[in-house]
């Protein structure tokens, strides 16, 4: 629980030197990312955010601190399931945890995300408390 970081809104800037951030959020909607990062920050969770799957792969490569990836399923360049598969394959040693959120809530999509290795799927609009709890649990877990 690192509530002290909640005061700063700078967490959403994805600077690699921000080593405190272990959570990476991937979504193509800027306003949504904005509010999500702020809401998590209010809950004491520092996070880094990117707007595409390609940027997410870059961020994971550059920031060894990242342990949790929260990703949207539908994105223009690559869907969330593919991103999970790709990251797991590219960084097998990182032991990354994946959480998925989707605006479609299609059973098939969520099933394939779980199969790909997601810890949990959250339909949008998010049940924020449950999300926060899940993230905190994962944050507490050893990397």
């Amino acid at each position, binding site marked *: 629980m690192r509530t002290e970081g909640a005061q700063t809104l700078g967490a959403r800037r994805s600077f690699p030197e921000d080593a405190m951030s272990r959570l990476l959020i991937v979504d193509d909607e800027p306003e949504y990312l904005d509010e999500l990062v702020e809401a998590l920050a209010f809950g004491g969770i520092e996070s880094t955010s990117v707007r595409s799957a390609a940027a997410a792969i870059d961020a994971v490569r550059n920031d060894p601190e990242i342990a949790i990836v929260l990703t949207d399923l539908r994105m223009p360049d690559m869907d969330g399931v593919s991103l999970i598969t790709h990251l797991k394959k590219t960084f097998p040693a990182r032991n990354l945890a994946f959480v998925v959120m989707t605006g479609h809530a*299609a059973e098939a999509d969520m099933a394939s995300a779980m199969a790909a290795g997601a810890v949990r799927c959250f339909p949008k609009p998010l049940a924020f408390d449950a999300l926060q709890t899940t993230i905190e649990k994962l944050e507490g877990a050893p990397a």
Partner: protein
Amino acid sequence: MNKPKESRMARLINPVTLLFAALVLLVGGLPLASAVTLYTLYSQTQRHEAEAGAHRTATLLLESFEQTIGPIDSLLRNFASNYNSTWNADQTYNALKEYSLPPTIVQFAVADKTGMMVASNLAPPQGDKVDLSDREHIQVHMKKNVGQGDLFISKPILGRVSKNWTIQLTHALPDAEGNFAGVVIMSYAISDFIDFYKRLRVDEDMLVSLVGLDGVVRARAGEKTSFGDDISKSETFQKAMLKKESAYEFNSPIDGIARIAYSIRSDRYPILVVVGYSVNYVRAKTAAFRNAIWGTALGLAVALLIVGLLTVRYFGTLKRLETQEMEARARQREASVLEAISRVPGVSVMHLTEEGPSEIGVSAEGPLPAALENYLGTESFKALAGKLTEPVVRQAHLPNADRDLEVEMVVVPLRAMEAASGAAQKEVVVFAVDQTLRRMEEQKLYQISKLASLGEVATGLAHEINQPLGVIRLAASNALIGMKKGMGPAHLALKLDRIIQQTVRMTGIIDHMRIFGRKSDERVQPCKPSDAVEGAMQVVGAHFRLDNIGVDTRYESGLPEVICRQNQLEQVLINLMQNARDAIQEKRKRQPDLRGHIQVDAEVDRTGAGHFVKIKVSDNAGGIPPEVLDRIFQPFFTTKPPGKGTGLGLSVSFGIIREHGGDIKVENGPEGAIFTIRLPASDARSGTAVATTTPSAVPSVLPAA
């Protein structure tokens, strides 16, 4: 309008006409030909008969002449043998008087060897002596041109003593030693011959002629009686002299008349008999026959013709009766067929004549017959029916009390079966099918398809709506926390602004969904093609962006508006774009890095008269397999995996565009499929179409529902 003329020609050259023409030729030709033959034969016969007649007459005449001259000749011989050269005049006179003479002998006389007349039976010798030595009939004996004992027949001369025209028959008189001692002369009145000849003549121009071998006519009975003419130079005479007897045609050197003649030369006397019939006379006789035979031939021809005509008419009547019977039977059969058709629900069959429409068979239930009857009675329809040469399919909206009837009808012109009874009369049979129900079915199908595509876009729309909703919820929650933490009004304002902005975004989506979900109204109105494309983009654009498919639109400047129901056009465009997207995603399974691209172009159709607007939707998914290309607009045809497509999208699209008076086509371009919609531009029509005539060949890809 070539066909009636051709058929009229064909009607003229049918076997019956040919037969009739042959009959006329036969009927006219046979009698005429036989008439010509008969006439020719007859005129030949006539000539032969004329010739034979001339021959016969000439022979008879010669015989008669010889029999007339014979006794005179023997009398002269007898006198000559009794003659004594020592006789004085009185003795001679007495000797002459001893002979009884026929009345044709005008004078019987003796001349001495100097040509001086010794005595004549007419009067006892007186002192004065007549000198005859200059006369030919004396001279021939004096010069011994005639054999001793031969008869000389002189040219006609006027007797110096008898004062009559006579021919002189003379013999030489010998003395005791047989020497020339004088001439005994018998003057024969040629009037006797001529009267006889005249009686022989059967017509004006017939010729009977006695000619001396010296070429001088002794007696001649033609149109005019004549004698003494010298024809020795004429060719005809010279020819006649060559043979004892001959037939010939000649122009008389005396009266110039052409004759068919026969001449015979006497064996005993230096004389030639010629008998000739005028060619004109022979012809005239032939002419009578010719007239008779032509008359007969003509009469025969006319009679045969009448018989032929009657026969043809009889057969014609027979055939017409037969045809009428067959037609009556055919009509009966047709009537049963039509009646059977009329029993089909929603179908009405009308027979339209000059008198107006009448329903055939069982009256269809409902308002269709009455409405159809009204419509067929209008002048505009009658005008159309009058011009019809082949069946056409027409669609019409018939006004009716509750709601207009949409009717599809086949108008079939009937060939006037009895063409004779007035070709101008036009009859048509109209098969009308009430399409109102079908249209309602189509509307339902359209709604189903709309629901189906609504379902397809629903997923995307949920995402679209969820997105701002998610932002709003987080922003509101963050604002609340910020207030609790005392972050101040600036933070709050920022959050509220964001919330408002997101609700505006949602309103746009929801507004469009309302248009899309509305039941389609029946009215068409001008709308900009770009509006429809943008409307469609609003529904699927965000969705496509997520699927990483770029959509580019291009509008020609100054594009006219199109006549359409905008929401229906949008549905068609959405459908085409979704198909393009599905195709792109399908291709991505084989080519994951494919950059999906859809191009929408709207432009004026320049292939026609510029009254159409084209909207093209092309993708880069590689195109449609050629084997399914022509089935693609069929209902329930789909290439998508089960559960993915309904197979209704394109068929409904086809129906919608066709209803708008346009068409939709598909082809494969270099990159992928190209769907082209053509719609009438708003300046092409003055209002909504009430009746559109479509070719009877309707594409087989019509929605079958």
